């Protein structure tokens, strides 16, 4: 109804043909919708272009044809300020948590950078950060550590909570747990669920693991041979 949705409309992605090579089609005419507070699962084997699709939805890559609609406006026609809003409101979380933070920055620095980007005054950084740490359940000392000094599970939590600082409406979760141990996977999935109920965030969950998709999603689709088959 008047739920603000993120909608993919007949997206296709083709890698351009070079001078001597023919192009390669990644996916064709893919459409789906993510509603706030709901999770749309995207399943497919590796190499099917799930991640590319995820990046297109998050606006990191351009689709060859078709468009992503955010609040009814196609991404390609957005004005600059709309685009900035989109940037904030649609976030992406990646598979490899060890890669999510700049290895040269301490965690605290990385987080206050985001706060600075949001325009939070310097004085309130520490309180904001503490707030954030509570959601992750991590001790305060992680702030003074480098990403390499923290385990994968913790990093993935931090990555999620950093994204949450931006208060996004939608998060594209690109294989958020496939690099993690089962026990940590469970932790992260639960955290995601909690966040969703708390903040009414919409997820696009990309995974090759059917059980994870089933566990998390309200509806899901299978990407196979470039086609999306939606299963409600």
């Amino acid at each position, binding site marked *: 109804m008047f739920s603000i949705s993120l909608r993919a409309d007949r997206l296709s992605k083709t890698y351009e*043909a*070079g*001078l*001597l*090579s023919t192009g390669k089609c990644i996916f064709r005419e893919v459409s789906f919708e993510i509603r706030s507070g709901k999770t749309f699962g995207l399943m497919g084997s590796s190499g099917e272009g799930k991640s590319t699709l995820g990046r297109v939805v998050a606006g990191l890559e351009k689709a060859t044809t078709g468009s992503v609609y955010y609040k009814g406006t196609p991404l390609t026609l957005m004005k600059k300020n709309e685009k900035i809003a989109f940037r904030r409101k649609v976030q992406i979380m990646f598979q490899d948590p060890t890669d999510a933070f700049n290895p040269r920055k301490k965690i605290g620095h990385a987080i206050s950078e985001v706060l600075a980007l949001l325009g939070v005054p310097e004085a309130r950084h520490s309180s904001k950060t503490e707030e954030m740490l509570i959601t992750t359940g991590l001790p305060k000392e992680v702030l003074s550590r480098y990403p390499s000094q923290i385990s994968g599970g913790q990093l993935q939590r931090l990555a999620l909570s950093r994204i949450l600082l931006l208060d996004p409406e939608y998060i594209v979760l690109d294989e958020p747990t496939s690099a993690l141990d089962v026990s940590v996977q469970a932790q992260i999935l639960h955290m995601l669920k909690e966040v969703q109920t708390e903040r009414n965030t919409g997820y696009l969950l990309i995974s090759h693991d059917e059980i994870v998709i089933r566990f998390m999603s309200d509806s899901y689709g299978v990407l196979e041979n470039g086609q999306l088959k939606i299963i409600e």
Partner: protein
Amino acid sequence: MSGIARKGTRYLTSLVLIIIINFTLPRLMPGDPVKNLIGEDVYVSENVMEELRAKLGLDRPLYEQFTSFLSDLLHLDLGYSYHLHAPVAELLLDRLGWTLLFVGVSAAIGAFMGSLLGALAGWRPEKKTSRFTGLAFVVLSCTPPYFLALLSLYLFSFRLGFFPSKGFYDAPEIGSILHHLFLPVCVMSVFSASRNFLVMRGSVIQEKEQLYALYARAKGLKDISILFRHIIKNASLPIITLLALDFGFLFSGALFIEIIFSLNGMGTLIYGAIIGKDYPLLQGAFLVIALTALIANMLADLLYGLIDPRVRRPA
């Protein structure tokens, strides 16, 4: 593959740019080339100079000079050196053979020696010998080439008297050539080996951490066969690129060694051309060196493709 097409375009553009640079650069040099054609302490009337100027084509507009330059190039006519009284192509070919021999052999020895020692040093960097060779090559790579050349000449040729001190030969025969070239080739190969050593060492250190090296060990390969069967081939990939990149460098680095050993090669030819503002020769030499470097790079790309299957992944 589009990669090849792109490379091809790049090489073509390089070629065109080289020709353009080649045309413009010597013309930017100071001094009047006509005056340089005349020896020192000689009085020459103005009209003689004008005559020479007309002969050189320097009074024509630049674009005309360029078109004639291009057409000459297509006819393989690189001009005529008024300083050395011979066609440039002839001069260059004459010297190119020698310098290619001298630089080529050194580059080959340097590549082999450097890679081998570098691989051994990288394989067991904690060993005393590895540390020693490492330090030695670092020091060598930090030493100005002419310094190295003079010292070795002093030591081996003067003090020990093992080798002659100048020229390619005394009499044009193989034995004499080998005797004369031994020392310069040694210096040059040590010089190029020091660069290859450092790259190879780093590369082996990097490669031996790779999983396939561990797997080779798990397969039951002996230590040394892991290095020589598995790591070397991977680790030599950067060496190929370096060799190609170094080719131009070696060519001109040979300059100092040629001066020290009084060798009549490309290096001294170019140096003389620069000092004497011998435009046509300079142009020709630049073109030849740039072309050689271009070809070396192309060969390296080709070789890279042959060694590294990742480059030629089938569809």
